[in-house]
C-alpha cells in the first residue's frame, strides 16, 4: 500500500518536474472575427504536431482586445504570448521594442511571398515584426440585381458621383432596401477608417506638413457633407451605430444596395450559408476622387517581447500564417473561405481564382494602396484609412464621435468639423507636435 503510494507520489513528482520543461502554454489574444474563430477551430493539426504546446484562446471584441493587449504590452505584463494586432500598431510598437522580430520562420515559410504593400507596412528597418493573418483593402460590393433594376452599369472603378446617383436610384425604403451602407459607428477603426480614406480620396488630409489639423478645410467639408447627405437619403436607419459587422449583417440580409468596405467582407457576403444574396453580389474597385480611395489593413499575429515562450510562439505564428494553413482551410471549407490578402501565391492559384470572384479586385485594391501617399497633397504621416501616430486611436475616436453625431443629426456638418478641429488642435498640442 505504502509502496504504491510512494510509487504514485514519485510518478507525480517526476511528472511535475518534467512538465514545465516539456509543455508550454501559449496564450493567444485574438479578435472575434470569423477568420480568427476559424483559426481556433482549425488548430488541431498544430497541437497534434506539437503535443508539448497547449493553446489558450482569449477571444475578445476588437476594442476590448486592443485595450487589454495595449495595457499588457505597455506595462510588460507578459499575459500574452501571441497577440492579434493591426498594421497600424505594428510599426509603432516595434519601434518601442515591444515586439519580437520574426526572423527564421522556417524554410517553408517563404516570407518573400507576402504581398509587398503588406509586408512593407509590417517591417521596421527591413525586419518583419508581425506575420499577416489576413489582409484587406476597400472595395465596392453591390447587388447586381438592384443595379440592373436601377438601369445602371457599375464601372470597374466608379466616381463618387456615380455612387451617390446609384445609391439614390437603388433605394426603396418601403421594401427596406437602402442604396448604400457605410460605417457610421464612432471609432478610429470604424467610421473614421472609412471617412479618413474617403477624405483622402477627396484630397483632404488629417494634417499638413507641419502637423496642423485640416478639418477647417473646404475639402473636408465637401467630403463630410456628401457622406452625411447620401446616408440620410439612401442609407439604412440607425447608420450612426453601424460598424463593419452591422453593415455585414444588413448586406447579408439583402438590405443594402451597395456597401463600400473591407475586401475581406466579400467571402462572407458570397457565402450562401450566411448570405441570402450570395448569388447576386458584384464587385468593383473603391471610388475615384482626386485620388482613388485607398485602404490597407492587415490583422497580424505578433509576439510581445514579454513572452516567456518565444520559440513556441514563433512556431505557432509560422503555422497560422503559412501556405499550409491556407490549404487546410481550403480543404475543409472551400477555397473561397481561406484568409485572403496576404500572399502572392494565393492569387496565382487557379483554384482560388475560380472559387473567389472577388480575388481580382481584392488584389488590385491592395496593390494600389500606397501608405506613403494616401492623398493628393503631401502628408507627414503614413496610413491610408488611419494615421500612423500613437495618438491616432484616441484622436480618431474623439473625432469619430463628432462625425457620428453629424450623421445622427445631432450636430451639423459645420459644427462637427469645428469640434473636430478643436479636439485635434488640443490633442496635438498636448502631445507636443510638431515633434
Amino acid at each position, binding site marked *: 500500500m505504502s509502496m504504491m503510494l510512494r510509487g504514485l507520489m514519485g510518478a507525480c513528482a517526476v511528472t511535475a518536474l518534467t512538465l514545465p520543461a516539456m509543455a508550454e502554454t501559449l496564450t493567444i489574444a485574438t479578435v472575434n472575427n470569423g477568420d480568427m474563430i476559424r483559426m481556433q477551430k482549425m488548430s488541431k493539426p498544430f497541437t497534434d504536431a506539437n503535443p508539448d504546446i497547449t493553446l489558450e484562446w482569449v477571444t475578445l471584441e476588437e476594442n476590448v482586445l486592443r*485595450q487589454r493587449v495595449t495595457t499588457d504590452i505597455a506595462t510588460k505584463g507578459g499575459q500574452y504570448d501571441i497577440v492579434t494586432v493591426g498594421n497600424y500598431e505594428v510599426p509603432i510598437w516595434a519601434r518601442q521594442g515591444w515586439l519580437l522580430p520574426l526572423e527564421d520562420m522556417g524554410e517553408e515559410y517563404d516570407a518573400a511571398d507576402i504581398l509587398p504593400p503588406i509586408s512593407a507596412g509590417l517591417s521596421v528597418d527591413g525586419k518583419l515584426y508581425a506575420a499577416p493573418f489576413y489582409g484587406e483593402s476597400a472595395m465596392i460590393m453591390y447587388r447586381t440585381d438592384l443595379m440592373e433594376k436601377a438601369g445602371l452599369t457599375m464601372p470597374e472603378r466608379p466616381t463618387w458621383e456615380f455612387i451617390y446617383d446609384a445609391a439614390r436610384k437603388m433605394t426603396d425604403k418601403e421594401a427596406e432596401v437602402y442604396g448604400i451602407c457605410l460605417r457610421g459607428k464612432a471609432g478610429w477603426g470604424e467610421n473614421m477608417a472609412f471617412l479618413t480614406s474617403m477624405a483622402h480620396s477627396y484630397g483632404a488630409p488629417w494634417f499638413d506638413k507641419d502637423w496642423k489639423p485640416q478639418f477647417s478645410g473646404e475639402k473636408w467639408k465637401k467630403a463630410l457633407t456628401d457622406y452625411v447627405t447620401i446616408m440620410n437619403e439612401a442609407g439604412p436607419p*440607425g447608420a*450612426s*451605430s453601424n460598424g463593419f459587422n452591422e453593415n455585414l449583417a444588413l448586406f447579408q440580409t439583402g*438590405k443594402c444596395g451597395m456597401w463600400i468596405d473591407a475586401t475581406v467582407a466579400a467571402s462572407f457576403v458570397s457565402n450562401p450559408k450566411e448570405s441570402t444574396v450570395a448569388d447576386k453580389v458584384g464587385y468593383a474597385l473603391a471610388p475615384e476622387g482626386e485620388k482613388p480611395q485607398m485602404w490597407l489593413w492587415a490583422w497580424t499575429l505578433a509576439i510581445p517581447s514579454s513572452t516567456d515562450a518565444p520559440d513556441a510562439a514563433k512556431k505557432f505564428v509560422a503555422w497560422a500564417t503559412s501556405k499550409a494553413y491556407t490549404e487546410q482551410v481550403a480543404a475543409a471549407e472551400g477555397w473561397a473561405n481561406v484568409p485572403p490578402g496576404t500572399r502572392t501565391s494565393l492569387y496565382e492559384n487557379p483554384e482560388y481564382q475560380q472559387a473567389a470572384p472577388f480575388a481580382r479586385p481584392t488584389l488590385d485594391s491592395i496593390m494600389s494602396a500606397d501608405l506613403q501617399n494616401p492623398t493628393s497633397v503631401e502628408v507627414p504621416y503614413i496610413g491610408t484609412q488611419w494615421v500612423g501616430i500613437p495618438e491616432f486611436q*484616441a484622436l480618431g*475616436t474623439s473625432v469619430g*464621435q463628432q462625425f457620428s*453625431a453629424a450623421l*445622427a443629426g445631432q450636430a451639423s456638418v459645420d459644427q462637427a468639423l469645428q469640434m473636430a478641429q478643436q479636439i485635434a488642435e488640443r490633442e496635438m498640442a498636448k502631445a507636443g507636435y510638431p515633434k
Partner: protein
Amino acid sequence: MATRHQKTLARLMVSPSVLLLLGWMIVPLAMTLWFSFQSYNLLSPGMEQFIGWTNYQYFLSDPAFWTAMRNTLLLVGGVLVITVGGGIALALLLDQPMFGQGVVRILVIAPFFIMPTVSALVWKNMFMNPVNGLFAWFAKAVGAQPIDFLAQYPLMSIILIVSWQWLPFATLILLTALQSLDSEQMEAAEMDGAGTLAKFTHLVLPHLSRAITVVILIETIFLLSVFAEILVTTNGGPGYQSTNLTYLVYSQALLQFDVGGASAGGIIAVILANIVAIFLMRMIGKTLE
C-alpha cells in the same frame, strides 16, 4: 474598566477592515495622485516628466467634461425617478391579494441578477436595434418609422436599460417596507373614511420614506459609476451625448492611454464622489436616525 477593555477590543476588531479599506483607498489614490502630475502616456514610454497642473487643466477644459457632468446627473436622477416611482407603484400592486404572487415576485426580481454587460448587449441588439430589433418590428407593425434609440435618444436609452436593472431592487425594498405597515392603522384610516389617495399620502408614503432613502443611497452609489452599459451600447456617443464621468475617465485611461490625464480625471471624480457622499450623509442622517 470593562468598558475600556471592550472599547479597545472594538477598535482592534474594526481595524483590519478599516486598514484594508484605507490601503485600498490610499495606495492607488497616492499612485493616482502622483501620476496626475506627470506627463505619462503608456504609448510613448520614456517621456515621463513632472508637468504640474497641466493634466487637471486639460481634463477640466475638455469639451466633454461639462457634458459628462450633466449626463452623470441626468443618468443618476433619471434612473432614481423611474425606479423609485415605478418601484412604489409595483410594490403597491404586488402587495394586493392575487393568484401566484410568488411567481410574480420571482419574475419581477429577475433583472437584478443579470450581468450589466449581458443586459446591455441584449437590449442593444435584440430590442433597440433599428433594423432587427423587436422595437423596430413593433413600430413597423403599427405602421410607424422605427426609432433608432441609441443614436437619437442615447442617454434616455441607457437610463431605460439601467432602470430595468434597478427597478427590482427598489420594488423589493419598498415591498418589504410596505408589508410592515400596520394594518390596524390602515383600517382605522378606512373607518375615518379616508380615500385611497389620502391614505397613500398620509400613511403609506411617510411609512416608506426610510425605505426610499435607502433605495436612493444605494442606487446612487452604483449609478455614479455606471460604465458597462455605456461601453457596450453607445461608447459614450454620438458626440458626447451619453458620456458620463466614469466613461470619460475610461476613455482617457484606456482609449488614449493617457495615464496622467486619466489620473487627474480619477482624482476629480473622487472629489466629486465625496461631495455627493457628504450630501447623502446629511440626507441619511436626518431620515435614518
